[in-house]
């Protein structure tokens, strides 16, 4: 990180245990002001737990850090007043109307000119005419939009979004990301967890976590290279057979279907190249070397890592 950029999230070596299981293990992260930081990892890897620690909802068992310059352990109130946290699970009141929910959140943050603020938010959402509908009656995607509107109502300096676009249709997802980029331009820092690769590539930086440990962290363009994966593409007929045959050959770590071809990836470029060329010549197939993609990198990272509690050891790399 360059020296002159203000660091909004700066935590060192935080850990969190539930019972005997370490859910977040020695986690560091530094997020500069105005960045959109993607937070990736398989299910149960500790993303939600980390985000909760960052906004003061959980106290870490070890480690320390600051959010917006306030100490995680001693100044959670200051952090809460300035952070917009969107929970993974819808957490507004189902039995309140859309307007009542927004109004309630606005009151929690002691917002001046509350009515105007809420009206503007409803207008923005395009929900002004449905303001008196119960939140329970909204569709899943609309609930997510409402939740985002609610966590923006106090103009937070830092947004912590936990899978904000789960279950949202592609058009709404694009609008969502446009909004995030607009906010980021205004200097709002965003940490967003996601399972979508098309969202990951839109982030400035990405942190990848598995079993509570951060495995990869860096600008999104350099992730694939960091993982050190080489990918070849093979085309032709009978791809299903080919997939079966090539799996387990020397140097082949991962085989995935992409459109009319298959992508064969491995960490040892020389061995993998030999295998691919041998098969391609024998079967007379077209082959090409691919630029390493984010998606392959993450599928590779996620292979063999499921849940924190499934295997307590580190995943094999």
């Amino acid at each position, binding site marked *: 990180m360059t020296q002159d950029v203000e660091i909004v999230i700066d935590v060192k070596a935080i850990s969190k245990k539930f019972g005997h299981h370490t859910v977040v293990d020695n986690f560091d992260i530094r997020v500069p002001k105005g960045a959109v930081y993607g937070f990736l990892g398989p299910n149960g890897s500790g993303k939600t737990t980390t985000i909760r620690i960052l906004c003061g*909802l959980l106290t870490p068992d070890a480690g320390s850090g600051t959010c917006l310059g306030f100490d995680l352990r001693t100044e959670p109130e200051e952090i*809460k007043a300035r952070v917009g946290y969107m*929970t993974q699970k819808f*957490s507004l009141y189902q039995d309140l109307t859309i307007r009542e929910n927004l109004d309630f959140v606005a009151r929690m943050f*002691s917002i001046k000119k509350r009515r105007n603020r809420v009206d503007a938010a409803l207008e923005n959402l395009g929900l002004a005419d449905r303001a008196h509908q119960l939140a329970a009656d909204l569709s899943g995607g609309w609930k997510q939009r409402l939740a985002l509107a609610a966590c923006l109502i106090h103009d937070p300096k830092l947004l912590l979004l936990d899978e904000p676009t789960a279950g949202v249709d592609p058009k709404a997802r694009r609008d969502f990301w446009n909004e995030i980029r607009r906010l980021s331009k205004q200097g709002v820092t965003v940490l967003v967890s996601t399972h979508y690769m098309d969202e990951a590539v839109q982030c400035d930086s990405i942190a990848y976590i598995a079993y509570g440990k951060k495995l990869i962290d860096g600008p999104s363009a350099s992730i694939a290279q960091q993982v050190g994966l080489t990918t070849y593409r093979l085309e032709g007929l009978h791809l299903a057979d080919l997939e079966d045959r090539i799996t387990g050959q020397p140097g082949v770590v991962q085989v995935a279907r992409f459109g009319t071809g298959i992508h064969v990836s491995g960490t040892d470029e020389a061995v993998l190249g030999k295998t691919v060329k041998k098969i391609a010549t024998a079967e007379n197939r077209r082959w090409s070397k691919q630029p390493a993609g984010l998606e392959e990198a993450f599928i590779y990272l996620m292979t063999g890592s499921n849940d924190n509690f499934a295997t307590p050891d580190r995943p094999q790399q």
Partner: protein
Amino acid sequence: MKWFSISRFLAVLTKEFIQMRRDRLTFAMMIGLPIVQLLLFGFAINADPRNLPTMIDLGDNGPMTRAVISAMKTSDYFKFTGYVDGLADGERALRTGEANFIVVIPPNFERDIIRGDKPEILLAADASDPAATGGAVGALRGILNVVIRQNLTGALAGNTPRASPFSINVQREYNPEGRTSTNIVPGLLGIILSMTMVMITAVAIVKEYEQGTMEMLIATPVRPLEVMFGKILPYVLVGYVQTLVFLAASFAMFDIPFTGGKLAFFIGFNLYIVVNLALGFLISTVAKNQMQAMQLSFFTILPSILLSGFMFPFAGMPGWAQFLGAGVPATHFLRLVRKVMLKNAGIADVTGEYMALATILLVIGLIAAKRYRQTLD
């Protein structure tokens, strides 16, 4: 940052009222419950009590009188706890609950028996608990008959009269007609309040956790006290409404008197509501979901019904049950309500109950506050 913001507290309060209004079924239940319970429990419930505290006003001191006293001491039904001096003193003992019965043995009791003058023994009973009074007359008659038969031996044995040699005059205090409803109904108020207050508070709070809204709530700058008071106050009002409905219905249907101090009642009643809300709050810190909250609340209702003196006369319960019962808020509220509604008691007569409730509140409050977390840990 402020420790308590009135406007955030009001926001939580308003939200809670809106939610309460939308949950029609629960709301109807809260109001309907007192009436339904009143009807159900208004019917007689009988029990077979033992060891009821009894004091004696001794007007005579002959060997036969002493035999009567020692027989009463060994009887299961009565538990002899001491002497009173005259009727006024006896009256006081009944009012404070020191005794359930006063047995007045008239002067010259023994002489009159021997002469065959049929002396009259007065049994003054605290009939506000008719289940306890019911058996007393029979038990006393039995004891006296045995004693007199044993003592009229020798020369006098022959002239044992065929008819009973004495008569018992029962004087029912506080509930002259011996109606069970008079006793049950005021006690029922304690049960209903504890049932709804504990359960509703526990469920209302656990619901926030279960539905995930607590995560959003504590991610805002709201303070625990604002949440606590904002969530609880609406239910205090529910308790008021329930009590009003209940009192109105019981005056109308059961013609229950209300003789004592209104203020004494009001203070005790508020104290009791707060104790129950604190208990509900404590349960909410233990229960993981609404179902558990419900079951745990129900679990606290049982002792309120069984050990508080609502079902069975408190003094008649075995020692361990009395010990447990003393820790149940309903026990003290029941005593307080019966004293105030039926026995004409004022604030001075119920300070003991206030103290007991306050002590329980302190203990529950401390545990609850210790368990409550401002985080999700």
